């Protein structure tokens, strides 16, 4: 089949060339249009339903909205689990879909459900489907801040003080307050940026939302016999514009409008709320109307100065580079329309990271291609021949981009990394093919110049000869990589794209090798060709190899002992290497995340944030470019941060301007030390990583127990008992049950007897509590494009402490005013800061770390489960009806991966063995070939140890890639041996050895060539320090080391073992004779 293909291609050379030009064009198109991001999204495939219920406690949000919502959302098709959290003022329902479900399909299903699921919910709660974004969608953050401007040229704004560049006048600072800046952000900047293509949502954060505040004095309400509900109703009904069709005068139509929108505070003051003794009572009589800040749950700070700003969230599947480009263009356009001096300044911009990552990979790819080409030139000493082989690389890369586009795989550090580790291997098939053509043509040319027809014949023949082995090697490489495809969970999300791209690249390369290379070789491999004997490189190799092999064949025991020793040492080294899940990727920007304990007030958190930001800015002038801190959450469902959480983005200067000896790690530590404030934990992470973590749900320890049940107190108790029980199970380390009740509450429990006695109904009491203490946005003003809320609430000093709350009046049936303190039992309590549930059932988690050096995960779980069951049976642990436990955690995915690998790995091995068997048709040869595997493993481990890498999934993927190619050369060598031994049967031991040496010499050049292309191509990567290299390096290092050691094994150990087998056969034959 392969042979036929080669022949067809060679006979239709023009067609082939044309097709390839088209493919290249297609590839270039794909390359330009593939979305590029730095880091793949490894979060769950989830759709978030966001619940906004301002000012309500987690308990209320859970009971009244989130729980009923989740019950109605269960049963949505394709859903794996529904997890929900309820926090202060908002709730989130994460609907996690099965892998492989189409994103927009999933959203539609949720939307379908939502259309009836929200029935009967409190009217002031807002239940919405989150935007169509993923965790990594927050690509651009900016501040809207004051700056300087020249009064004569107000179009341009400046960051710092100075003089106008046009006329030298002194610049004026702009002095907009935070609510004005927020107004500009909310009503101008936000909508403009939202309309940029690819932007799903722009959310505001920081500053204050302007609000008209009616502060009512309850004593005056009593005086005038007005109730707070009267005030609310009066305001509500005093803010409306009406259209009343038209009237005609002559032949002209006039549109009739009734005007009544509230426009300023005076309009509100003059609203009449009732009549007292024939005199109208106005709002101004019972309260105070001011413009003030709305209740806020987020703030933004730039180096100690409060600012306002926003975040741009990109739509699912868009190209971040292009979106950010669009945003920047739009900002430039809209800046002209901003008030003089006001500026839109970015403080987080993904482009930098993406550019750096892409540059790293582009540099890696170009260097690899150049090095590979160079190696080929050195070995072949024929420029055009080398060119032909090298063409595999760019075209192969382009083909993999075509496939990526077809399969919807984004370009990022992982998928491009897959191509990077494939480069050296990609040329293998090409070099084998071209080398053979070259040799054949050269051999035939010895007898004089060839005609075109003869050359074509020779080329076809030579190509056919190696077509099958090339195809075969490709097959083993691809099959060897199959285990990566079955990885699940986060590892799967990270490495499956890599596996895809690597396979695409390999397949592309093989395809080119078979179809295009013979044609190109036909045109370009001509002129003076050197036979292997004439080539300096070959001669050098042979001069070194021959005596080495000769000596080894005569001292088999010593050589085998040395190899055995290396094996043992390598295996011991394994024990020294630590494990980790994934090498962390350096994102450039730092995310400093100080966190206060639940219960901290916004003012307290703000104080901490401003101090820390100032310290970071002032103490690290050489390293830090800017610092912008955010506390609480931006108004988007992709940012569920509580007020006690600060997220400060630290943008660093280029490393060359840093102080001497400063490293990223040191800088992080120093920042943490200098900003250490008691009670605040200085956590340092990275922006994208953090986003993914924040939206991830579930258990992140190897093992966990979820205790489900209706009552929070009960499940907490059970969890604590489990904590005690499991701690004593062998192998358990650090067992802890989650505590949920630690946020201060002030609870007003209404006494039903007393309200009955006073003739008040409960609903009225609650209404007054909500309006008087919490306040209520009753309507909003319409001022041009802007809309601002109007809020009614008691005067601050009359509601902001328990004493004052007791004096809030409730109107009884007979018109008497009853103070709240008489009707309720008020108490301070600790309650949950957050409530969570899974598939509608509240749960508390018990986290268990396992000492995996003592006991395997799965065994541990079995043991722990049995212990817990025993305790339940003996009555030590009581689990009431309606409560249950579920064991969960990372071990689940390990079990799943293990189950899958248990099937896939043997099948892969069996298929490879079968292929080898098909090639050799005898078992000893297959076993000899397999010898190179342990040595490649050992060789791969040693560089890990030297470079200080840990065993991570990345390293394992490197090993899997290595195993795919490690045997290739052994196969080649053994094929040659078989041929030689087939041609000339040896009669005595020296002849056996002579045959082996001859075979070795024949293959040493191509073997060294393929090995060196792969190894040398990867070497420069090991010295990269730029963004993205930290993931590629651990993948590349086992390949480098393993391939080198495998080559030694292939070139020395395998000939020895093969010779030994043949010698044994020979002696046995002699004995039999």
């Amino acid at each position, binding site marked *: 089949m392969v042979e036929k293909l080669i022949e067809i291609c060679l006979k239709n050379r023009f067609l082939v060339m044309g097709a390839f030009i088209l493919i290249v064009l297609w590839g270039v198109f794909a390359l330009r249009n593939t979305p590029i991001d730095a880091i793949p999204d490894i979060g769950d495939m989830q759709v978030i339903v966001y619940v906004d219920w301002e000012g309500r406690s987690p308990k209320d949000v859970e009971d009244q909205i989130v729980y009923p919502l989740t019950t109605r959302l269960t049963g949505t098709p394709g859903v794996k689990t529904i997890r929900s959290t309820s926090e202060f003022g908002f709730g989130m329902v994460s609907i996690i879909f099965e892998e492989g479900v189409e994103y927009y399909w999933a959203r539609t299903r949720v939307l379908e459900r939502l259309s009836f699921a929200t029935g009967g919910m409190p009217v002031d709660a807002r239940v919405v489907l989150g935007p169509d974004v993923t965790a990594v969608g927050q690509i651009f953050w900016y501040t809207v801040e004051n700056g300087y401007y020249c009064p004569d040229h107000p179009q341009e704004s400046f960051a710092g003080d100075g003089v106008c560049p046009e006329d030298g006048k002194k610049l004026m600072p702009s002095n907009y307050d935070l609510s004005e800046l927020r107004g500009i952000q909310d009503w101008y900047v936000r909508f403009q940026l939202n309309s940029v293509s690819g932007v799903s949502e722009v959310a505001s954060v920081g500053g204050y939302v302007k609000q008209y505040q009616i502060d009512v004095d309850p004593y005056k309400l009593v005086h005038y016999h007005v109730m707070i509900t009267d005030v609310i109703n009066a305001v509500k009904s005093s803010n409306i514009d009406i259209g009343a069709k038209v009237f005609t005068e002559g032949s002209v139509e006039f549109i009739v409008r009734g005007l009544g929108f509230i426009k300023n505070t005076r309009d509100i003051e003059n609203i009449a709320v009732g009549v007292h003794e024939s005199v109208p009572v106005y709002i101004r009589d019972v309260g105070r109307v001011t413009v003030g800040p709305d209740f806020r749950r987020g703030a933004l700070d730039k180096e100690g100065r409060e600012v306002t700003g926003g975040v741009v969230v990109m739509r699912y599947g868009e190209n971040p580079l292009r979106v950010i480009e669009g945003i920047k263009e739009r900002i430039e356009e809209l800046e002209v329309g901003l008030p003089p001096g006001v500026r839109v300044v970015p403080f987080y911009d993904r482009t930098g990271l993406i550019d750096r990552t892409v540059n790293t990979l582009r540099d890696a790819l170009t260097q690899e291609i150049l090095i590979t080409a160079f190696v080929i030139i050195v070995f072949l000493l024929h420029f055009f021949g080398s060119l032909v082989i090298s063409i595999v690389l760019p075209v192969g890369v382009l083909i993999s981009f075509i496939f990526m586009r077809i399969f919807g795989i984004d370009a990022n550090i992982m998928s491009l990394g897959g191509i990077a580790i494939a480069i050296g291997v990609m040329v293998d098939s090409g070099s084998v093919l071209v080398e053979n053509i070259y040799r054949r043509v050269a051999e035939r040319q010895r007898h004089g110049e060839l005609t075109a027809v003869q050359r074509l014949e020779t080329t076809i023949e030579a190509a056919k000869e190696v077509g099958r082995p090339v195809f075969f090697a490709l097959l083993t490489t691809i099959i060897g990589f199959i285990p990566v495809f079955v990885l699940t969970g986060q590892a799967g999300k990270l490495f499956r794209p890599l596996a895809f791209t690597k396979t695409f690249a390999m397949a592309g390369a093989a395809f080119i090798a078979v179809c295009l290379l013979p044609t190109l070789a036909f045109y370009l491999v001509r002129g003076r060709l050197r036979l292997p004997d004439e080539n300096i490189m070959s001669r050098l190799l042979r001069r070194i190899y021959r005596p080495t092999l000769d000596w080894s064949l005569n001292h088999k025991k010593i050589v085998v002992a040395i190899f055995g020793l290396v094996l043992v040492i390598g295996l011991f080294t394994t024990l020294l290497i630590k494990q980790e899940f994934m090498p962390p990727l350096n994102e450039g920007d730092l995310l400093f995340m100080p*966190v206060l304990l639940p219960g*901290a007030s916004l003012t307290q958190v703000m104080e901490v944030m401003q101090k820390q930001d100032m310290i970071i800015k002032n103490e690290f002038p050489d390293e830090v470019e800017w610092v912008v801190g955010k506390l609480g959450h931006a108004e988007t469902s992709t940012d569920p941060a509580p007020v006690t959480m600060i997220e400060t983005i630290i943008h660093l200067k280029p490393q060359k301007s840093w102080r001497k000896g400063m490293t990223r790690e040191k800088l992080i530590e*120093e920042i943490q*030390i200098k900003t*250490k404030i*008691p*009670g605040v934990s200085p956590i340092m992470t990275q922006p994208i990583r953090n986003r993914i973590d924040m939206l991830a749900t579930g258990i992140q320890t190897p093992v*966990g127990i979820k205790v489900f049940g209706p009552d929070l107190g009960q499940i907490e108790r059970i969890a604590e008992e489990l904590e005690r029980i499991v701690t004593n199970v062998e192998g358990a380390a650090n067992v802890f049950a989650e505590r949920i009740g630690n946020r201060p509450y002030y609870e007003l429990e209404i006494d039903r007897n007393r309200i009955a006695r006073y003739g008040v109904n409960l609903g009225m009491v609650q209404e007054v509590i909500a309006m008087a203490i919490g306040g209520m946005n009753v309507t909003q003003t319409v001022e041009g494009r802007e809309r601002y809320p109007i809020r009614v609430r008691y005067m601050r000093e009359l509601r902001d402490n328990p004493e004052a709350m007791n004096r809030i009046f409730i109107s009884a049936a007979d018109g008497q005013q009853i103070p709240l303190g*008489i009707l309720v039992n008020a108490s301070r309590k600790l309650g949950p800061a957050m409530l969570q549930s899974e598939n509608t059932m509240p749960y508390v988690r018990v986290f268990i770390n396992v000492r995996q050096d003592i006991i395997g995960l799965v065994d541990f779980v079995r043991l722990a489960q049995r212990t817990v069951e025993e305790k339940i049976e003996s009555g030590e642990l009581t689990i009431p009806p309606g409560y249950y436990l579920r064991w969960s955690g990372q071990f689940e995915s390990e079990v799943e991966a293990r189950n899958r690998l248990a099937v896939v790995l043997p099948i892969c091995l069996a298929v490879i063995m079968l292929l080898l068997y098909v090639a050799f048709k005898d078992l000893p040869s297959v076993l000899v070939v397999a010898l190179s595997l342990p040595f490649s493993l050992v060789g791969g481990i040693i560089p890990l140890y030297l470079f200080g890498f840990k065993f991570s999934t990345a390293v394992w993927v490197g090993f899997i890639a290595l195993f795919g190619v490690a045997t290739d050369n052994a196969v080649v060598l053994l094929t040659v041996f078989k041929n030689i031994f087939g041609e000339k049967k040896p009669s005595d031991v020296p002849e056996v050895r002579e045959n082996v040496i001859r075979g070795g010499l024949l293959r040493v050049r191509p073997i060294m060539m393929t090995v060196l292309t792969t190894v040398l191509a990867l070497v420069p990567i090991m010295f990269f320090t730029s963004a993205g290299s930290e993931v590629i390096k651990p993948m590349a290092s086992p390949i480098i080391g393993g391939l080198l050691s495998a080559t030694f094994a292939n070139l020395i150990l395998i000939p020895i073992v093969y010779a030994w087998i043949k010698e044994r056969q020979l002696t046995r034959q002699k004995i039999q004779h």
Partner: protein
Amino acid sequence: MFSKKTMIAGAVFFTVLLLLLISCGGRAEKAVVDTGMIGRQAMCPVTGDTFTIHASTPVVVYKGEEYYMCCPGCDLEFMKDPDKYLNDKKGDDGRGQKAEPSNEEIAYWTCSMHPEVRSETEGSCPICGMTLIPAYERSESSDILPLKNSAAALAGIRTYPVRKERLHREIRLAGRVAFDPELVTAQEEYINAIKMRDDIESIDEISLKRAEQLIANAEYRLRLMGMDEAEIRILARSRKVQSSLVMPQNESWVYADAYESDIGWIERGQSVIVKSAAQPDKRFAGKVMAVSPTFSQGSRSNLIRIKLSNPEAKLKPGMYVETTIISPIHVGGPRSPESRVLAIPVEALLDTGSRKVVWVYIEGRGYQPRTVKIGPVGYLHGGSTEERYYPVLEGLNEDELVVTNGNFLLDSESRITGVAAIGYGGALGVDDQTLPAHQH
């Protein structure tokens, strides 16, 4: 053969590396503090002083050794002629002392958001995935939280000395300027009855008895209308009706309605501040003259009668006014002779219902949490109405310094570092019993 080649290459590589490393040692150069050294003691080679290394301590690298300087400037001096300073110190091995390890050892790792998480190893929080932070083993097992001055300044800690103060509660009541002709009439009847009795000659026992009966009836009516005994006695003596109840003169009456929860705090003689919308800037001073002995079923309130001076008769009968009764807080009951109580600002108290905690600064040692017992919140006598104070019944002594700002941070810190585990769970913390056993 190949191995030899690689070995040579390797050897060359390592030699170059070694040379590079060695070459660093020739000159004295500025460097960055090794974070592992922070907090340790070192001796400055220039001044010879011993000091604690902190993050911005100047460091000079000379001949591969790091030297820590006590102050900026020393480093410049040192770099001019390092050997001079190094040879000065005989007996030492010629370099800045890298001394004792910190006496604080990491006890376990915990999460700042979830202090219940305790891990023996470094890592990330299983709940939120954040990096765990170390909690240190303390050499002294005490509930005192030591804090450096710089850290205290960063936390914005402010203290307030606990003093004995006069505290009072302010009871705000809705009131009205009295227009009560009925009461005036009743008073007139009462006075008339007294006068009548006085006119009766003492022999006429029956008339006297009847007059007494009349007086008693009138008195009874007065009391029903809100006058109390003392007031009635005054009336009997002065024999003057309170005519300002109808027409304002130099003084006025204000009737205020007190609710059940307030009555216990109101007594005759307490001073009252009255404000009126008619005179928004003026505060009228008055006194509680009587707490009505009867409770009004209709309004669910108790009538308080207040007399106040009304010099220009600005307050007119029937006007609505806002009254604030100043009710002093006594610790040993209302009649206690000691009218001053230990007072702390409300900010000092962390109260979550289960615990009331105040952080106290102990000079030279740190901050200590105290569980306290407090009385009802009040205002400082003569102080602003913005600042509120709690009377402390137990748990504090006079002149102790309580933390009024930054105490939430102290409380958090104690919960994170495990101070809270010692006999105290943090004001906002979990109960002691539920804290996981200290694991080693």
